[in-house]
């Protein structure tokens, strides 16, 4: 009798088990968002946008230094360095097995931007952004600008690119994408900038975020850079003019506004960030999960084995009274520009912001454009503005009136080289002005324009058979 009861109970349990079957197998993520449960609130879209910035942090810190400096003449090899990348790049032994040739982290930003662009528009259609137009515009606009920024950097590095503008819906979609030619890439960048510029405000609050988030000003900086890269000087002037007129947000820093040089607003823009000059910088804050830009891996006390030290050619460019030299490096050839000269704690203060665009950069690009448009005096005026601020003597008309366009361009480039040294600009300056071979051949033997673009990383080539390696590296 007792047995039968027990059996009955178990049969019941068994039966319950059967009926609960559907439920038992429906398990959803607990500590993460399921794809189906995301993009349901506007705060999620904002968090996704912040996510895109964290991905940009990973993509540029300190890779941006390698992209913009390692193949150029402002830095040279620190012989005690343990870094394989730096030696190979400095000696122009750029090969597709180098880790730095991978574009994965930049594409991660692009993909995150693609997701935002697609989904916030759907959210908007669904009315989630009702009464939140400003929030919608800011989110969407920054996503466009981020995508443009990444594609622009990537095309300057690798040339033609697989143009991905839609996120994968699911794993069943085809994910092998061919490279589009550079014209198509430029068109896409311009289109994205056009979209962003109408959406983005000139500033955010709190005011610090104006520098560390993409604004209309930042979009204009990217426009300027893009048009200069494409030698569209009129357009570059127009775009840069929009920054110059925005004086409430952008003004040059000073090298004389403090008794100690390192406390001047000029010096502090590199060590503390968020200067009046800054147009867009990637913020790093050690207090936020130990975020670091890893500048100590590339710059600083050579005894600590950073990849680079200042090069002799750059040191000779500075006039003796140029205060920028004192800020940028020291007599041991340590690159000190981004580090506090006193009380620098290498471990916890390695969170220096990466300055992507600042006013001096835009001004000097303008100078290049003015020179190209046969306005050398206007161009030199900008150069002099930089020189005088730094304590150098200004160029007099006699110094340049006899010079041709290319020679004046050299003056501007030299000024850029001093003003923007170690900020990841030099290599692109040389490529843009087609002076890379003449400058670099004596140093590392660079002798072929096809060698300007970087190789596509081997792994990527292997995983995507549609990709053709850049011709120089075939």
């Amino acid at each position, binding site marked *: 009798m007792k*047995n039968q009861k*027990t*059996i009955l109970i*178990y049969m019941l*349990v068994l039966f319950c*088990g059967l009926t609960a079957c559907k439920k038992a*197998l429906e*398990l*959803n*993520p*607990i*500590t*993460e968002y399921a*794809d189906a449960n*995301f993009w349901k609130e506007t705060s999620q879209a904002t968090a*996704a946008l*912040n*996510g895109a*910035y*964290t991905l940009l942090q990973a993509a540029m810190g300190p890779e941006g230094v390698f992209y913009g400096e390692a193949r150029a003449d402002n830095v040279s090899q620190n012989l*005690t360095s343990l870094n*394989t990348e730096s030696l*190979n790049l400095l*000696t122009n*032994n750029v*090969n597709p*097995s180098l880790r730095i040739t*991978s*574009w994965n982290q930049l*594409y*991660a930003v692009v993909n*995150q931007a693609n997701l935002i662009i697609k989904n916030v528009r759907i959210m908007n259609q669904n009315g989630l952004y009702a009464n939140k137009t400003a929030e919608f515009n800011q989110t969407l606009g920054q996503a466009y600008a981020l995508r443009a920024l990444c594609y622009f950097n990537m095309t300057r590095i690798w040339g033609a690119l697989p143009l991905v503008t839609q*996120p*994968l819906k*699911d*794993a069943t979609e085809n*994910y*092998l994408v061919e490279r589009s030619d550079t014209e198509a890439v430029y068109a896409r960048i311009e289109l994205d900038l056009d979209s962003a510029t109408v959406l983005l405000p000139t500033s955010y609050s709190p005011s610090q*975020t104006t520098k*560390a*988030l993409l604004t209309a000003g930042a979009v204009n900086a990217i426009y300027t850079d893009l048009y200069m890269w494409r030698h569209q000087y009129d357009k570059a002037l127009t775009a840069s003019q929009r920054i110059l007129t925005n004086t409430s947000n952008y003004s040059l820093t000073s090298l004389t506004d403090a008794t100690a040089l390192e406390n001047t607003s000029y010096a502090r823009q590199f060590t503390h960030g968020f200067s009046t000059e800054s147009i867009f910088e990637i*913020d790093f*804050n050690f*207090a*936020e*999960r*130990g975020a670091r830009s890893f500048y100590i891996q590339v710059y600083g006390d050579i*005894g600590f*084995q950073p990849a680079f030290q200042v090069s002799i050619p750059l040191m000779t460019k500075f006039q003796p009274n140029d205060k920028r030299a004192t800020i940028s490096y020291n007599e041991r050839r340590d690159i000190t520009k981004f580090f506090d000269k006193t009380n620098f704690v*290498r*471990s*916890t203060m390695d969170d220096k912001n990466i300055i992507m665009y600042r006013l001096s950069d835009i001004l000097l690009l303008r100078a290049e454009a003015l020179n190209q448009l046969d306005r050398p005096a206007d161009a030199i005026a900008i150069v002099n503005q930089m020189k005088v601020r730094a304590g150098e003597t200004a160029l007099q008309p006699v110094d340049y009136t006899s010079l041709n366009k290319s020679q004046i361009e050299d003056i501007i480039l030299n000024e850029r080289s001093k003003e923007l040294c170690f900020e990841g600009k030099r290599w692109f300056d040389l490529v843009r002005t087609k002076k890379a071979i003449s400058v670099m051949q004596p140093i590392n033997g660079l002798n072929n324009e*096809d060698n300007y673009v970087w190789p596509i990383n081997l792994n*990527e080539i*292997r*995983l*995507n058979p549609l*990709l053709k390696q850049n011709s*120089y*590296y075939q």
Partner: protein
Amino acid sequence: MMKVRIFKLLLLIITFSSVFSVAFAQDARPRTISGVVKDEVTNETLPGISVSVMATGKTVITDKDGKFKIDVGGENPVLVFKSIGFVSQSIPVKGKNNLDIKLKQQLVSLNEVNVTVGYGTQKRKEVTGAVGSVSGDQLETHPMGDINTSLQGKIAGLQITSNSGEPGAGATVRIRGASSVNGSSQPLYIVDGVPINTETFAGGLNDDGSTFSPLADINPADIESIDFLKDGTASIYGSRASNGVILITTRSGRNSKKPTLRFSSNTSIAELSRTVGVMNGPQWRSAYIDAIFNSTGQMTTKPSVIDSLNPNFSKSIDWHDIMYRQAIQQKTDISISGGSSDNSINYYLSAGYKDLNPIVRETDYGQATATAKVYYTFNKSISGSSSFNLSNTDYTRILTGLSGQSVVFQALSTMPVYNPYDPITGQLIPLFEGSKPNPLAIAELAANRIKRFRMFGNQDFKVWIAKNLRFTTNLGFDYENSDLSNFTPTSLLPQGQLSSSYLQTTKASSFINENTLTYKLNLKTDHTFNFLLGQSYQKFNRDNLDLIGRGLPDAQLTNVGAASVLSTYIQNISQNSLLSFFARANYDYKGKYLFSALIRRDGSSRFGADNRFGYFPAVSAGWRFSEESFFKKFQFLDEGKLRASFGVTGNQSIGNYAGQGGYINNGSYLGQNAVILSGIPNPSLKWESTQHSNIGLELSFLKNRITFTGDAYLKKTNDLLFDVTVPGTTGVSTIPGNFGSLQNKGIEATLTTVNIVAPFKWSSTLTFAYNRNKILSLPNGQDYRPNLFNMARVGEPVGVFYGLKKKGVYARDEDNVYKRDENTGVVIPYKQGSSNGKIYKGGDMIWEDINGDGIINDDDLQIIGDPNPDFTGGFANELSYKSFTFSFLFTYSFGADVFNELKRSLDSSPIDQNFSTDQLRRWRTQGDVTDIPRLVKTDPMLNYAVSDHFVEDASFIRLQNIALSYRLPKSILSKVKISGASLGVSVSNLFTLGSYSGYDPEVSSSTNSLAGGVDRGAFPRTRSYNFSLNINL
């Protein structure tokens, strides 16, 4: 209930007594016969032998000295001597009063042994699938090992490759080749009916590539037997059975009435079994000067190189001697088993402790285990059992792999000129020249720890509803808690890097409920049916907390809480569940024709609603032709069986929410929460399925002196389930999916022979397995290369190595001739990488230019090796004479290749470090003919690219174990009231024959078959000398 039982017992006694009295009455001349029973071979007295009078059935049992006394009567009385394990004897005792009986040990036919086949057992002769078995006694010869290492070489078709020589190390366990390409293509392990977690885990957040196996939580001393379902019949476990099922039965108190205490103690001395050749001080100086000069054209200014008189750099140190030691290891086990007189309750309790000090300095491993298992019978129709297994492990380890903090790698790569101690102060130097960590300092100052607690067990009830109808319900649980921590102090890091503390705590649990109905039906005695109907539900929970803290104040506080900033804090909770229904029918006609059919329906929470359920059927049949009348004339044949099976098994090893895609937190930006994409959804994700066909032949000859089992199989796996590496343009690194198919086919054989019977006994077992693995299809037929070394290509085995093929080293610059211009006669040389690449010069590698374009690049890569062995197996022997037993076990593996990444890391010299002794042969000047290219720091010509230069033959024959044991004579033991004792000495891993130049040819840094066979500097395997003492009370 108890009262009833006592009453029954009394009744029984009364009945017996009355029978005796009748016997007395009938016999006119009753007399008492006494005697002693001994083993024919060892001449030891045998207790517990049943002695009965054939006529009356009256029975006595021999006492502890083998003596008996029995009253007999009647005409020509005959005594029968019987015991399990001995051949019964019938002795006429007419006229004899004193007997000296010698019993002969019976060669137990394996066919009578019970085999666990999943949800039940069968006699081996009834089994229709391919099942391998190992008894617990066979594990005992390998006392310090874990389950994985103790099983090596014992089962044909079971290939176990330890991932390292660390205690508790993970292993790659393959039954019949790699049938999956996902991370955990491991078999399913079932302990006493409960599937347990055996997924290998990494050594913490500071991932050094080491893996550990949860199987180490089980004490091999508690194992009674292990059975392996190798073929399609494993589909009774459906979804997780693609890689076979390993069923572990733990020891119990069954068949024992009086309490038995077993005690065993083992002590081992372990040491490094092989070293890897690296340069000494002067050799290294010369090589380093070359490397720098060849790279920069300048003499190095490195003080450690140029200043050989500096006391800091004046030594020539062999870091092996400093970092490795002879370690004393100990293991003690104690168990008690017993039961009530009617065996309605029986129990097994055990406790064990092992102290496996690894051979690297400053490491320590301690593990305590305990089990309890109780069976109880309430009444005729209800019985139950409860069991618990506990394990607590505390392991202080060092990092391995190729990382800068790896002692294994640093012991090889640290420059031999460094003095570990400051020559003036005598203090340990943490960092040499400001950047290179001193391996001894790593071992002393860094703290890496694994603390782990595991508990699993089950509770079941069996209810006989009707005579042959049984209902079983089983509740099982498996819980583990582990804390993996790593601490790296500032002193070991180049200046500016922060001290760090990592903590990963994992709580994982699973709960299972299974309900089965079994029914046995006999029709006209010739037809036997067995039916099984069941349902199972298992739910898994996992809670991970990952913390990385940076900037600790000093080396005194090493916990993550002491960090100034938490750079990572991730909590990850996940669940998955499986719901299954299954049925099986077995039919047996006269024990001659055997049929079995089964089906399992599994539902997994990991798949979307449309693909959630999978069906896994299997059919099998056996024909015991030795039972046929026409075969009876072949007297020499004891048993012959032909069997065949076909089954479909599944695999669901993919992330819990892989199909759903998702977003995760990624810290913050400007203080605001940040979320990023973590996975792309795949709604069509579905089961991977394996079709498994098998035919087998089992033969026993000459009174079971020769037993042969042979199997041939074909396994085809479709819809391979894995996280496929995708191009970076997708924004993610992998996406989950079902891609491609592969097959394994092979044969395996086990031959057990009793070569000599008595008094000297020699038996041996040879296992052999041959497997061919081939990829049948991949998406669009394209090659898939998830990493630098391995690839998947249609028509090739899984994970073949892919790289350049070398043809030598250019002796002179002018030897580099691709072709000559026909008109001008100008030499066109081979170039590296591209048409604009550098020209190979004397001392560079000569690579095979497959496409003949004069450029050595990715187009010239080819398959250069195969990590899958062609055949594997073992050869076990046991020789015994009187009280001595001598055994040895060889294991072997032929045809596999290993990629020596450890050597590549040393010689490609991306950073300043020591080189392998290969570099003594390096090319130095024009005209040198050698196989080792010149040394250039950072290797601009990529002479050290992935190539066959680093592919080595991993074939080996290993003397896995050699042991001698001596059973102490009963005569001595009886005086101290001990029923059995033995002493033993053994050596594990005494030698390995093979050409591999690394630590051990049996190395796999990964359990993933698409990343196998790469030696990334795992913890070296040890050789150990063991002394053991076993006592039974």
